[in-house]
């Protein structure tokens, strides 16, 4: 299997804070990876780098064999031009913790916007695609609802449909269920699980909810202090963690 995402010795700092430290990471095409770890461990930054929302200070990041970031000593060896970022972003879709729907557009409008304006489909084609995606996430009856009239779970399902509308090869979920009421987590998880069945779609989920990792992932990485400390199957990581830090984290999560 070819690698869909590669991180080669990546450093990322915010001022004095080291967020990624000589970070190596590989995800094969079609793999479903969950990254767990305490907050501040660099998980979200990792996703933002893949989405090209954040650059790196050092090292190399490639998507589907194509270089996205290549930096040495804080200098970019690949110029992050608008065209380069747009090319690379077309491979990736992202779902955010706080949904980030556009409040001035209906559910249908939110999902149709990118196909209409970025892919240049006609209004009718874009809306047809949006309606089909919203049906897939179980929101056929909410097409004309504005985000403010939807529950958190419904908003997040719209956000997933919106990210899928550009047919990405990689889907990123940044704490996608963390802002939801507990009884709303299930409906979003169900949609994510359906996506996880798509064989060719590569998924990276960042979460501190073990249940989410268990439901989606065929591989779990435990991350802390800008490094991956343990990497294995869900069975191994969750049931017999080898690293002391992983054990401490899992104990803390189970207590909460």
């Amino acid at each position: 299997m070819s690698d869909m995402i590669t991180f080669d010795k990546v450093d990322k700092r915010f001022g004095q804070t080291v967020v990624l430290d000589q970070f190596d990471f590989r995800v094969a095409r079609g793999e479903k990876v969950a990254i767990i770890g305490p907050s501040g461990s660099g998980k979200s930054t990792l996703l933002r780098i893949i989405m090209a929302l954040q650059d790196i200070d050092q090292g190399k990041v490639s998507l589907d064999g194509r270089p996205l970031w290549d930096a040495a000593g804080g200098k970019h060896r690949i110029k992050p031009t608008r065209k380069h970022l747009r090319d690379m972003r077309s491979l990736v879709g992202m779902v955010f913790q706080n949904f980030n729907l556009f409040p001035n557009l209906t559910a249908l409008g939110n999902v149709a916007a990118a196909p209409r304006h970025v892919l240049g489909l006609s209004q009718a084609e874009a809306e047809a695609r949006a309606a089909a995606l919203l049906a897939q996430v179980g929101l056929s009856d909410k097409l004309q609802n504005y985000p403010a009239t939807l529950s958190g779970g419904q908003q997040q399902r719209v956000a997933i449909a919106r990210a899928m509308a550009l047919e990405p090869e990689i889907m990123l979920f940044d704490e996608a269920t963390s802002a939801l009421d507990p009884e709303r987590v299930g409906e979003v998880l169900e949609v994510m699980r359906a996506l996880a069945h798509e064989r060719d779609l590569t998924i990276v989920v960042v979460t501190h909810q073990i249940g989410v990792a268990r439901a989606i992932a065929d591989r779990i990485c435990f991350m802390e202090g800008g490094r991956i400390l343990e990497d294995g199957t869900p069975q191994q990581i969750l049931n017999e963690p080898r690293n002391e830090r992983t054990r401490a984290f899992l104990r803390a999560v189970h207590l909460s």
Partner: protein
Amino acid sequence: MALIWEYRFDFLAGVWWTVKLSVLSALLALVLAIVAGVARSSKLRVLRIASGVYVEFFRGTSALVQLFWLFYVLPYLGIDLTPLQCATLGLGLCFGAYGAEVVRSCIQAVPQGQLDAAAALNFSYFQTLRIVILPEALIMMMPLFSNLLIELIKATSLVSLITIPDLTFQAKSIITKTYSSGNVLLVTLAIYLVISLIAASFMRRMEKVLSRGRQTGQPA
């Protein structure tokens, strides 16, 4: 009050000029405010500096002197504007500068998450501006624009000094004819108040239209 009634058509003519001028210069100010406000929050230094100079100059100098300059000095430079053009341009430039600051601050208040989502969807800069930022920022701008519009309506009284027969101009000329300043000025104040109230209620309605669908529980 019989006196006021006798001069009702003079008052009406004044109201017509005041309203016409308010609408024209408000439209010009709106366009300038959006262009300069967007430029002020641009990534390009040139645009930021250019719009900064515009804003600081026109809000930092007297509106009346600006009007005088357009009216008395421009003809010497070979540019002859009608009084209406001078007034529209002067008030538009001045209030566009105030408005630009409103636009800039409201653009900056759009949550970063919205911008991240737009970037993740691969929107271009102008698409992000048009589809995400401006619709969002516009709602925040409305109460502030409403303030500025009322300021603008009251500032139109300055144009009586460059020969435009607006409401203030008419009031003054009625006073010189009747020597009844108290009543005439009272009626004039009342008329300005009514115009402002109408403008404010129009702006509230606009705000409601722009923010449709935002209230929870409202049918779509």
